[in-house]
């Protein structure tokens, strides 16, 4: 039986009603009464949750916009570019659940066996250079992702590992054929970097968009770019949703330092920032003219174990460390630097994540170590290290909070609980990758945006599967590999949930990493900024500001 996804007008109005309440509760000051605007309706036609929207103005957004290049599929930063593009679908909170909603695809069908995805594309959409959007663009985009031309490094290829082929069936229909089902695939299509480039741009630039900002179909168009300073994006007057955007332009201000972003918003030099420092968040919380939120992200702090080096090649040693080191203590040490939250192998915002109150009852995760440390010592003794280990190498990046706070805290825990002595070695972040590739570490501590989905499969495929593209710990767990293949394929939600729980148990018993926690982004804004809908999106989704408006 085919599954259809279609948002009716009634569904959309329910969403608007629910999100208005939610937004008012989180943002504070209700909007002033201003003339109402017409709301377009239909699948994916978003609009601001507030009733009377004011048009015009320029939003000044403070964040990190500098990226080495402009090709989102080759790893460019979405923050500076996503505003200009659309994907086939995007993720939104609908009725309290994170759901794929239409973007460039009006609707879609998934075959009963989960191996055919058919997207029915919106009509009348144009790229910023006037080129009409058709299925040929989707086909060209995904052919590049699935089979990158020589010389290109399409970082998204691994996310679509189950997809065999993409085909433009007709002008408004595109079909993806899979080798085997992937129940999480819609979420992968909704990843912020998974934008649809025009075939024309791809052909004109030999498939390589690193050096050009290709035209998009998004609500904003590039007006001006000043390297290392800012980008100005103007409203797209021909956007396929005629009601938005409400503002005239967005100014993206490049402020790489988190505190600078916060001071910019607090002093009125900027209107909002998607991620600022904890101190600035606390300042914003004290002020009545500021809104704030802590948004879950797909980034996390971890410690790699080198599973091919003694003594960490013994799963008992890794398990012992994971039992003995306290998550809670590390989070406490770090809480004034970043908002890292307690979770395990899955982002905490995922439906499949173990809730913190249940996680805290499990060995290794519980706050009290009275039972865990003796068990850890027993495992160490069994592995042949009753007196601990000396001379281990703990590598971290030359980021102050990593090298001077987290790494020493982890080092101290290893020493106090299991008498494992380690030496902290600090290297530049760009060099860290080379250490991993060469296996020149015992432990490596870092923060990572390893995944861009809440579903665990994409992360686990690249990081934990034997031979995975980012499996730098050289972890190999055949029972986990076999279970992961089932998790990847399973379409029944309830069975899949059980399998994911079993997989997490396997990872707990034989861990490749120590998960310190998952990051929240500290979003702050001036109260006159409306339409953000932070309660309906993850941190990464904040690279789209379609419905934002200024109540001033």
């Amino acid at each position, binding site marked *: 039986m085919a599954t259809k996804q279609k948002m009716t007008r009634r569904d959309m109005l329910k969403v608007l009603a629910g999100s208005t309440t939610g937004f008012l509760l989180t943002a504070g000051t209700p909007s002033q009464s201003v003339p109402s605007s017409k709301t377009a309706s239909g699948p994916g036609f978003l609009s601001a949750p507030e009733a009377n929207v004011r048009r015009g103005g320029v939003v000044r957004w*403070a*964040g*990190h916009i*500098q*990226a*080495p*290049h*402009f090709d989102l599929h*080759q*790893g*460019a*930063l979405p*923050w500076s570019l996503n505003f200009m593009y659309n994907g086939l679908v995007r993720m939104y909170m609908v009725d309290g659940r994170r759901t794929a909603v239409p973007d460039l695809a009006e609707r879609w069908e998934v075959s009963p066996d989960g191996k055919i995805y058919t997207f029915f594309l919106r009509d009348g959409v144009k790229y910023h250079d006037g080129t009409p959007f058709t299925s040929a663009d989707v086909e060209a985009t995904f052919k590049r992702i699935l089979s*990158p031309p*020589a*010389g*290109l*490094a399409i*970082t998204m290829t691994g996310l679509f590992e189950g997809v065999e082929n993409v085909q433009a069936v007709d002008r408004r229909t595109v079909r993806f054929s899979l080798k085997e089902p992937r129940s999480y695939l819609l979420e992968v299509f909704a990843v912020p970097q998974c934008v649809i480039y025009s075939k024309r741009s791809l052909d004109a630039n030999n498939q*390589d968009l*690193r*050096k050009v900002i290709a035209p998009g179909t998004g609500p904003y168009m590039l007006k001006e770019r*000043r*390297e*290392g*300073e*800012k980008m100005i994006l103007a409203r797209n007057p021909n956007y396929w949703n005629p009601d938005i955007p409400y503002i005239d332009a967005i100014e993206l*201000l*490049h*402020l*790489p*330092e988190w505190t*600078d972003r916060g*001071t*910019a918003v*607090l*002093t*009125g*030099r*900027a209107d909002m920032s998607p*991620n600022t420092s904890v101190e600035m968040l606390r300042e914003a919380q004290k002020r009545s003219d500021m809104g704030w939120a802590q948004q879950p*992200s797909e*980034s996390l702090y971890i410690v790699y174990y080198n599973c091919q080096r003694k003594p960490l090649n013994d799963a008992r040693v890794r398990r012992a460390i994971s039992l003995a080191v306290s998550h809670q203590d590390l989070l406490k040490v770090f809480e004034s630097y970043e908002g890292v939250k307690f979770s395990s192998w899955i982002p905490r915002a995922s439906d499949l994540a173990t809730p913190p109150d249940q996680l805290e009852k499990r060995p290794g995760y519980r706050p009290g170590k009275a039972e865990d440390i003796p068990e850890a010592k027993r495992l160490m003794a069994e592995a042949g290290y009753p007196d601990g280990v000396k001379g281990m190498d703990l590598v971290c*990046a030359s980021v102050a909070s990593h090298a001077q706070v987290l790494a020493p805290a982890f080092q101290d825990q290893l020493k106090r609980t299991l008498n494992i002595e380690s030496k902290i070695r600090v290297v*530049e*972040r*760009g*060099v860290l*990758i*080379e250490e991993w*590739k060469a296996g020149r570490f015992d432990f490596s501590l*870092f*923060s*990572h*945006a*390893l995944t861009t989905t809440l579903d665990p499969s994409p992360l686990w495929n690249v990081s934990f599967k034997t031979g995975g*593209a*980012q499996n730098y710990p050289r972890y190999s767990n055949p029972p986990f590999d076999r279970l992961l293949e089932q998790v990847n394929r399973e379409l029944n939600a309830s069975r899949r949930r059980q399998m994911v729980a079993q997989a997490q148990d396997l990872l707990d018993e034989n861990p490749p990493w120590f998960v310190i926690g998952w*990051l929240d982004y500290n979003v702050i804004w001036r109260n006159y900024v409306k339409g953000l809908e932070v309660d309906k999106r993850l941190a990464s989704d904040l690279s789209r500001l379609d419905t934002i408006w200024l109540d001033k």
Partner: protein
Amino acid sequence: MQSYIARRLLLAIPTLFGVTLLIFLAMRVLPGDPLSAVTGEGGAVFVLNEEQLKAARASLGLDKPYYAQYLDWIAALARGELGKSFWKDTPISEILARRAPITFQVALMAVILSWLIGLPVGVLSAVKYHSGFDVGSRIVVTLFMAVPSFWLGLMFILLLVSLFSWRPPLDIVYLSEDPAANLQMTLGPSLTLGIGMGAVMARITRSSVLEVLHEEYVRTARAKGLRERAIVWGHVLKNAMLPILTFSGVIMGQLLAGSVAVERAFSVPGLGLALVSAIYERDWMVIQNLVLLYGGIYILINLVVDISYALVDPRIRYR
């Protein structure tokens, strides 16, 4: 003098060649392959496999032998092309045109401030040798020499934000466009740098003036009945200027390269931050060309300082 200048300019050429060789080799030798990872905020790491690395290297011309890459670069320089950003094709001349005026303005203001602070303090300190003023000023000067300029900058920003809910503008605004906004942006960093440099300037001025104060011609001038002010400002300072000029040249050269820490503290998008961004992004072309530019600036400034010796001290004549 003209032949001297010509000789110095000719000598600059092998010096600059040396700079190009050093920076070219440094980029190739130092760890950190730009193609091994593309990173973004939060350390997002997307890594290339060996095959992808090889192909990407070839697409950027990095598969050529080192000597071929070097000669390509030198040939481009000889044609007057400063090159483009490694990744984004942004002409480096665009980066310079936009940021150099701000960096230059901050540097000039900082040097002027260092003179305004350092010269009077240094001269007075020397003239009132071992007095309360001398001891007090030396303590203050030592304190400001010890305090890092970026800390001073951060404290400025902190005070402004917390007491006045105000911070300098984030956009580049030139003096000719909007003097008020421009000064809001540049006064902070130049004051921060100027205070630190002023402290060093005061020390140098003090020791230089002290040396000259004990010269015979100064004693003669006093014996002739000249006022002390006229002696100090008309005779002593003129003869004590050489070390002060040398120091001014050195700091001007340093500041033209951009004070990274202060630019970061004030979020001023100057040349220093441009170099740091290029280093993080492993943008070899930008790094190489900026370092070469800084080398050229230093050579020019040294030449200007040397010429100024001849203007200040008639005894110095170049042939």
